[in-house]
């Protein structure tokens, strides 16, 4: 006890001499600091879910929600983008530092505990130990053998401790449990490490492709573009519906093109991305791109002679109707309006579509163009003058597929951390480090021997106490068994016991 106090005093002096650095370290490592930091993280994160956040919410929505004055303050403090602000990141780094410091501070003790198990309890330890029990025995050897058998029966591997002046039995289970908390802390750091790596080297963006289009330019969140060393081509994309019309599936047939050839093909759906060279492509949206894939027409000669023809056109396609006449699909307007004899594009939604076709006919060696509009727009279209009457039968619109693209090199750290944490938590909560000490004690006054049984567990004390009581009762039974047999048999049984334990290995 005195020695211990002396040790503490020595440490106090050391603290003074090492000064501020040591103090800072201890502050960081203290659980109080950790708790304060965590409370701060909780408050700020909660604030980040209540205040509308910048990158997700559109600027006009922000302006609608807050008055300009409030918005200016929120922006200045950084509360409109909590999770990307430098102070939140700084706070998380501080938490990491705190975890590291606390672990480093406590680890040597735990390691000593782990690497040099306390195998023989001295008298003061025995006095303070709980639970403990003393069983009366006739001689030390039979007591120890009984205890050994009892421990074997419970699945422990007892160890005889023989020193110059004392001896006893030590048995333990799951010593690793003492270190499990460091596994959990390490896993948390690994997760933080992964997210930090992603924060610096990862990126996210979008890539919109029309069917048939190839591109390697990713539009990043901040508006810049990133050029990939390979390109992605969308061969086709589509949407499948349930019977009631709600979407069931969005899919895109993608091909990875590198050095001019296809190196990978995959049909991606919402929960199944394409992964190539650490870049993931996710199905994110799908819709009409406002462009015509194919316009089907029926053409009938205006003069009534000749058969009707069925043709299909994409924009800028030219098809011959007869030897002198061709038709070209000049323009497609998904939502048109007419003003002052001009046709305008009102929007890109497929609301009020118009197709502009140019019919060219050779007459007297000269080309004459007729502007045919479908539908016939008064004052603009020459539909009635054209040599062919054109009628649209079908309009197939082109579609685009919207892909989310992300590169997260740190995610393996995150998943590794998650798995490690699962393992660590399993050890922390469900694996108990149990220790038992059995020492034969002789009372100097009465001269009677007894078997002292003590134990400890690092958690789940009630399960442990059950275990302890089981050990005591089994040992009692074994003691009775041994006392019934003669001394010779006893030696034999000890030998049997030894071989038995060898076989168990």
């Amino acid at each position, binding site marked *: 006890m005195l020695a211990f106090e002396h040790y503490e005093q020595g440490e106090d002096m050391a603290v003074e001499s090492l000064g501020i650095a040591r103090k800072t370290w201890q502050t960081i490592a203290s659980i109080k600091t950790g*708790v304060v930091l*965590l409370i701060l993280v*909780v408050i700020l994160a909660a604030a980040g879910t209540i205040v509308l956040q910048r990158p997700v919410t559109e600027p006009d929505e922000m302006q609608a929600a807050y008055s300009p004055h409030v918005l200016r303050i929120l922006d200045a403090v950084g509360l409109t983008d909590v999770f990307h602000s430098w102070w939140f990141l700084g706070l998380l780094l501080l938490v990491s530092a705190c975890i590291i410091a606390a672990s480093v501070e406590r680890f040597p003790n735990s390691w000593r505990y782990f690497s040099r198990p306390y195998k023989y309890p001295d008298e003061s330890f025995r006095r303070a130990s709980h639970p403990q029990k003393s069983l009366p025995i006739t001689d030390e050897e039979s007591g120890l053998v009984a205890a050994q058998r009892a421990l074997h029966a419970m699945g422990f591997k007892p160890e005889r401790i023989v020193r110059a002046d004392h001896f006893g039995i030590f048995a333990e289970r799951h010593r690793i449990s003492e270190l499990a908390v460091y596994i959990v802390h390490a896993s948390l750091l690994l997760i933080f490490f992964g997210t930090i790596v992603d924060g610096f080297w990862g990126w996210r963006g979008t890539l919109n492709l029309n069917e048939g289009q190839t591109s390697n330019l990713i539009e990043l969140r901040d508006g810049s573009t990133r050029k990939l060393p390979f390109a992605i081509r969308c061969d086709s994309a589509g949407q499948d519906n349930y019977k009631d019309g709600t979407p*069931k599936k969005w899919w895109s047939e993608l091909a990875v093109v590198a050095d001019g050839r296809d190196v990978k093909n995959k049909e991606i759906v919402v929960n199944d991305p394409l992964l190539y060279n650490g870049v993931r492509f*996710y199905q994110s949206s799908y819709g009409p791109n406002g462009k015509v894939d194919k316009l089907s027409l029926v053409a009938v000669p205006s003069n009534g002679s000749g058969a009707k023809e069925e043709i299909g056109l994409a924009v800028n396609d030219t098809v011959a109707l007869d030897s002198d006449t061709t038709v070209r699909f000049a323009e497609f307007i998904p939502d048109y309006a007419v003003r002052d004899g001009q046709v305008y594009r009102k929007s890109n939604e497929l609301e009020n579509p118009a197709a502009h076709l140019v019919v060219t006919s050779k007459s007297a060696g000269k080309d004459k163009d007729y502007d045919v509009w479908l539908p016939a727009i008064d004052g603009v279209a020459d539909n009635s003058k054209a040599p062919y009457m054109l009628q649209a039968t079908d309009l197939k619109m082109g579609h685009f597929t919207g892909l989310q693209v992300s590169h997260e090199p740190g*995610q393996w750290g995150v998943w590794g951390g998650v798995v490690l944490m*699962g393992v660590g938590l399993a050890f922390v909560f469900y694996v108990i480090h149990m220790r038992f000490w059995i020492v034969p004690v002789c009372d100097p006054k009465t001269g009677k021997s007894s078997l002292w049984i003590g134990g400890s567990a690092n*958690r789940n004390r009630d399960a442990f106490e059950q275990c302890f009581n089981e050990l005591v009762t089994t040992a009692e039974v074994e003691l009775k068994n041994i006392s019934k047999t003669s001394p010779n048999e006893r030696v034999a049984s000890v030998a049997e016991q030894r071989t038995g334990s060898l076989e168990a290995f």
Partner: protein
Amino acid sequence: MARAKAEQQQPASGTTLIVMVGLAIAFLLFMAFLNVVKSGNLLNESNLLFAALIFYSGAGALYLGFGVTGTESYIKSASIATWAGLAANTAAVAHRWYEAGHPPFASVYEMLLSFVWTLAVLTLIAEKKYHVKVIGTVTMPVAIVGVVLMQLLRTDVHPLVPALQSTWLHVHVTLAMLAYAACALSFALATMFLIQDNMKTETFLTVTSASTLAIYASVVLTRFEKWGGLSLVAWNPENKAEVFISKGVRLFVTIPDLGWIMVLALLVVAAPLVFCGIAKWKKNDSFLVLANRAVFLSILIQVMALVMFLMRARDGRYPSLDADGLFPTSLAASPFILSALVGGIFISLLYLLLLWRRKDLEALLPSAVELDRITYKTICLAFPLLTLMIAAGAYWANQTWGSYWSWDPKETWAAITWLVYAGYLHMRITRGWRGRRAAYFAILGFVVVMFTFFGVTYLLPGLHAYA
């Protein structure tokens, strides 16, 4: 005074209540059977749910009878009724699963279905394994409210939208259900610990009154309209869906005068708290007696408010402030107001139970030390489940949205929940927090869980629009 009177009452004879409940169950089943014969369809989900409701109600009545009178023989019959209800509930879950082709986790209705099922299972486990018999008094009324809500929310099987078509959905949601159930259990155990730890009955009065006050305050603050109206979401009976003016903006109708009733309830519910405050300030215990009487009165007024709400909001057409004409509404459009009102009554009743039967409760519950230990054990179970739930969610998000963590409100609050429980564990293991402080922490944890589960979905915007 009320307490003294209650203690003088003789416990009702054990068989009377059992026979009454049995007869009621038999009668309701018979009526339901007549109905089934008429419609000719026996094993559909609604019939199964109705059967579950009947059995759970019977069990709830018996558990309450046990809680109030302490008659042991009720427990056995209550267990049987719970088993029967669970069987019907299981059949309903199986039916739904079979019909939809996916486990029932995809909508609020399906979540409730699974939640009630989990609750019944946990009740039976707690009763049989841990001998916490009184737990049915709390869980069964919750189960009944759940089944009633389901009747209102009942929807046809909706196919899964593309983002939900993933095995990880099931993993994530199952883990979430288990984790939240464990958190709820730890909350109940922590409360029981406080009872066993001789916490003053007044403290419980303060907390229960504050909770009911919070319920009515939030209803009045968010829904009270000019001239005493109460605004509720309009409901389209054909589509069985809420009415939207534009994307994300619901149409509200205003029920005249209902707002005044809510204000009245708010005032009456505040009374016990005020009396309690006066008692503390003046150090005069006679005000506590007044406070307890006020709880009585508040239950009456709350029941009245609920009845008025049920009558006016069940159906009918009401004007709206945002559009011309009359629009229909339905109870299904306001499930959360309904459950909040029922919850308020329930909380006040629980307080009365404590007020009258504290001695019996103390005799029935395990010791304080034991409860403290079980609370800790439940959190030891909840914490890894929470961790796995968040991990599975992150993995799924990575598959669907292309990012494992996007600080969406639900994600953030799940992380906050995790941190709170991590804090509990650290304080307990490294600082040796036991008893009251640990119990408060466990209760705080559950409050955060409730906010994550309900608050985030209905108050904060985000990606978790499905549930």
